[in-house]
């Protein structure tokens, strides 16, 4: 059936999301270096967000306009945070 073919395996995606959540909690409990922990848990968070957006929000089926609606504000967020970083974070 075409409809079934078009839908990702949502349950498998959910298992991945829960597995990644457990992994990030486990990593935070082990006392590695703080910077390494931060990098790993936020990388996991980004992977989880991408999994949700691509599969649950069907971004993988969308056109360029929808991608740009998601990406442009994210770029603004990164730019805003990055340009303010030297001024605020060091005081």
């Amino acid at each position, binding site marked *: 059936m075409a409809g079934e073919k078009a839908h990702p395996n949502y349950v498998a995606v959910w298992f991945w999301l829960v597995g990644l959540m457990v992994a990030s909690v486990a990593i935070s409990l082990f006392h590695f270096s703080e910077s390494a*922990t931060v990098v790993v848990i936020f990388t996991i968070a980004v992977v989880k967000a991408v999994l949700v957006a691509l599969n649950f929000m069907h971004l993988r089926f969308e056109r360029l306009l929808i991608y740009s609606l998601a990406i442009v504000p994210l770029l603004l967020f990164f730019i805003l945070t990055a340009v*303010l970083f030297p001024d605020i974070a060091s005081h």
Partner: protein
Amino acid sequence: MSQTHAIESRTDTLTGTGIPSGRLGVWWFLASEIILFGGLIGTFILFRHGNPEWVAAAEHLSLTIGTINTFVLLTSSLTIVMAFAAVDKGDSRRMRTWLFLTILLGFVFLGIKAFEWSTEIGAGFIPSTGGFWSFYYAMTGLHALHVMAGIVINTILFISAVLDRLKPHEYRIELAGLYWHFVDIVWIFLFPLLYLA
């Protein structure tokens, strides 16, 4: 063309871009929401970096409660997308069941959050306690308001479905789902920011 496009082209007006108006409208709205939460989260990251002592404040949060709530919200994202898949298959009964479960999980999330807040406030941690707590209550409060809005939207759709008035507009389940998944994504970042880092 994917089936998700085909569904809405049957029931929702196509814009000049070829994207159904409802879906395009929700994505525009979500773009503004990224800026709203992005501003708050970006400011928190900057202040958190500039205030290493906030680690001590964050240790008062319950990792167990935060993890359970993350699980609840991730699961609610599954249930609402399953509701949409049921619409796709023309199975209204299952759609109602999945939608009801999503609403229920939304209430579970808010109930756990309310318990968590009351415990923290009872322990003396209020917004004026310090910078970390101001951000904590602002970010989780704004997020909880979004969960409430999602519950209202999902409940309106559920009642419409029960009254058999949703049939020509079942594509709206996907639109409600887009919003709900966004709220889930925001929590995916709030969880490590507040509880893990």
